[in-house]
């Protein structure tokens, strides 16, 4: 057996399994937890064997949190819906603004162009807490506090720079002559952008959108401060599981599983585009 086959037949699968185990085991454990009661979860030693229950999920869906101290109202499904609205809204707005901007930065050299692009990126460097307090004051004055629009606007700090910089790289990789070839055929600038540039950069746009969706989905601190329970996403809503009579591990686990689902589905769907982008090969030349 040569070195190469030893590597590919034995070592590689073993190592890959190890890596997968390392990253996936916590998720797997959470998945199991979501079908257990708090007592089953907290017993020592922990065990892989238990009689599964759907109570955690049922509690989340019905909005009733049953604890030792009584029943609490829990707007978890509402939170989930808020997460969907906020993240989708933020990503769509960022695509609308960021993709044309990325194209402009990639294709045209203009005064202060690099500075503007860098400033947009630097939004990612600033600690959110630094901007949140003044922002809170402004939002109260403007009446944007506790509105979807206000939060989506603030989410641009997360999603816009990401989309702008990733998509810009993809546009730069497209030979301008591909666009020129289309323009010389008698098409205007805008049509070329929509019909040639965007489709060619689609894998990049999909990747950037997915990534920024995940970042937006996982954001915690903006919504904590700028929104009340009616528009808060799951990340903030999960705080409700820390109750006076203890932490509801089973329901937290069920909530985690439910809140992973949308991003997971999206990632699986977008994967098609990512693979398509790679298999098309170089766009250049």
């Amino acid at each position: 057996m040569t070195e190469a086959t030893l590597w590919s037949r034995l070592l590689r699968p073993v190592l890959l399994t190890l890596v997968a185990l390392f990253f996936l085991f916590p998720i797997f454990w959470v998945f199991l937890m979501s079908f257990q009661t708090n007592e089953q979860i907290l017993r020592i030693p922990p065990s892989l064997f238990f009689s599964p229950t759907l109570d955690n999920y049922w509690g989340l869906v019905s909005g009733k949190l049953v604890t030792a101290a009584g029943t609490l109202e829990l707007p978890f499904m509402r939170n989930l819906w808020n997460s969907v609205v906020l993240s989708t809204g933020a990503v769509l707005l960022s695509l609308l603004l960021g993709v044309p901007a990325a194209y402009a930065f990639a294709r045209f050299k203009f005064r202060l162009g690099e500075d503007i692009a860098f400033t947009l990126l630097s939004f990612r460097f600033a600690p959110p807490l630094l901007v949140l307090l003044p922002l809170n004051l402004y939002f109260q004055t403007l009446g944007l506090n506790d509105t979807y629009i206000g939060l989506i606007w603030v989410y641009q700090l997360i999603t816009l720079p990401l989309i702008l910089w990733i998509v810009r790289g993809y546009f730069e990789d497209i030979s301008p002559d591909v666009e020129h070839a289309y323009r010389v055929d008698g098409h205007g600038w805008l049509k070329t952008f929509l019909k040639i540039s965007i489709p060619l950069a689609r894998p990049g746009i999909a990747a950037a959108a997915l990534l920024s969706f995940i970042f937006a989905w996982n954001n915690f601190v903006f919504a904590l401060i700028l929104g009340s329970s009616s528009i808060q996403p799951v990340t903030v809503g999960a705080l409700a599981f820390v109750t006076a009579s203890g932490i509801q591990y089973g329901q937290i686990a069920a909530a985690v599983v439910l809140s992973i689902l949308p991003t997971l589905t999206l990632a699986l769907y977008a994967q098609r585009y990512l693979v398509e982008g790679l298999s098309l090969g170089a766009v250049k030349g």
Partner: protein
Amino acid sequence: MAALELDRVSKIYGSRGQHGLRAVDAVSMAIKDGEIIGLLGSSGCGKTSTLRMIAGFESVTEGEIRLGGKVVNQLPPARRNVAMAFEGYALYPPLTVRDNIAFSLLRDKRSKAEVETKVQEIAELLAITDLLGRYPPTISGGQAQRTSLARALVRQADLYLLDEPMSQLEPQLRAILRARIKDFLIQRRMTTVFVTHDQTEALALADRIAVMEAGVLQQFATPQALKDRPANLFVASFIGEPPMNIFAARIAREGGSLRLTALTEDGADAFSLSLPGAETGGQLATTLGGRSTVRLGIRPHLVEVGASGELAGTVISNQWLGDQTHIGVELGGATLIAVADGALAAPVQSAVRLALPIEALHLFDADTGVALMHGLEVATPGVQAA
């Protein structure tokens, strides 16, 4: 189809004003309707920049471009009705070769059958019929190049700009396609400007050739005129294979006639020729005026190799190229390349005699390189000698 005029067109890249790079410098050309023009010049001399200005992808820094009599400087590419084959092919990767070619035709609301016929016709012309179903990333460079050429030629445009359309092909295929494309262009009276690095291609395909160097148009003339009457030293040494022999030379007046002495690289006398004097070549003496030094150019093809020649030299190289022989001859310390038809029995180190007929000689100004005389004919100044 339309005529194209460039009127002192310049392109300056980079920061506006004085710091920029002058890639194209006051180029003027008048191209007639249906004419085929070859653009020849060394790499980086501004050929692509010129084409891009004509197509409208680069702004014109100075000067005017007129297409069909209309100034197009400010017109976007879409409204110039120009077809272009790009140096980098620029095929659209998600579409098949067929769709890449048909792309522009579909827009004109032609019937499917008509489009298919046209695509088929052009694909046959360029020998790419068996590629039509493939995708650009999966075909070779030469195939992509022909696809890009097909995409330009299939269109119904006023002007065709072809940037190095056949540079990736092997000489045999290039020769075949050259002939087919020439027929195609002439039949349809397509006004065409093509860029090439291959002199044979330019000479074979073009009605007139524009030679550029460092952004400046050196000469714009028919292939024959470029060979017989190069406007300056650059054109003289650029056109022709093998290149023209160039020597520094000294002129001495001996009574009625002129004596021209070619020098070696070190400045020593190599060989001398007597030129007809005032009685026979009156213009020669007048044109040369008071000059005591010139540059002497000798076309290798016109050197006569044989026993009757008045110059004696030694063969230092002999290459038989199948149908002609290139021999290098040492003449008093200078090396002269001569071309003889067929195989020549002149082994290295053997003595050989050469004659340099007056038509083989070109005289250029020693400082500026501008042509003075072509044989006994006085050179006309200017680049537009047709």
